């Protein structure tokens, strides 16, 4: 099956790609997709423990299954809001 992968912020800069489609095996989970992406873009490996993921624009756990046509997003640690001086 085929999913759309989206990368944000520094993940996108490191990979040099914001969005691309990839073939993933049946039974794949979010984690499977990440492993495929990290294998293709080794500079992302360091983020394995700090990313969040979303499936079709909802937060999803690594163990969540993915389906054909899903949009799977990987998110580096977030920094919205105001400066973190306190």
């Amino acid at each position, binding site marked *: 099956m085929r999913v759309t992968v989206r990368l944000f912020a520094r993940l996108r*800069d490191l990979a040099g790609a914001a969005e691309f489609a990839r073939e993933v095996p049946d039974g794949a989970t979010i984690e499977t997709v990440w492993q495929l992406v990290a294998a293709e873009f080794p500079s992302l490996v360091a983020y394995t423990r700090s990313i969040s993921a979303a499936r079709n*624009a909802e937060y999803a756990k690594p163990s969540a299954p993915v389906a054909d046509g899903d949009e799977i997003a990987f*998110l580096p640690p*977030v920094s919205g809001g*105001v400066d973190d001086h306190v």
Partner: protein
Amino acid sequence: MHFVGLVRRDNAGRRVAWLEYEAYEPLALGAFDRIAREAARHWPAAHLAIHHRTGRVELGEPSVVIAAASPHRAEAFAACRFAIERIKQIAPIWKHEFFEGGKVWIEGATANPDDERALAEAVRRACE
């Protein structure tokens, strides 16, 4: 009441030139809804509105605005403070800081809306 976050000139010893905020917009809007629902569980009378800029934001400009309304001022203060803490925890928004001589992505918390400890910390900071 309103909270307005402004872009500051100085951050971590760097002189900031401007910021660029990037968001995963549908998920960010969903996170704002979630934050409002979480706040409503703790402060039922308070109503929240949350807005965050994306793209380039200049020094001194607002990056985030939170409005909290409540018949009771204590709830308005608490819900507003909760919202800003929670935005920093779970809103899929990233700050790209451009300073003299370079640029850097600011990375804070790994977003995990199910992290109960983070939620409890945001409630604690909200000063019930």
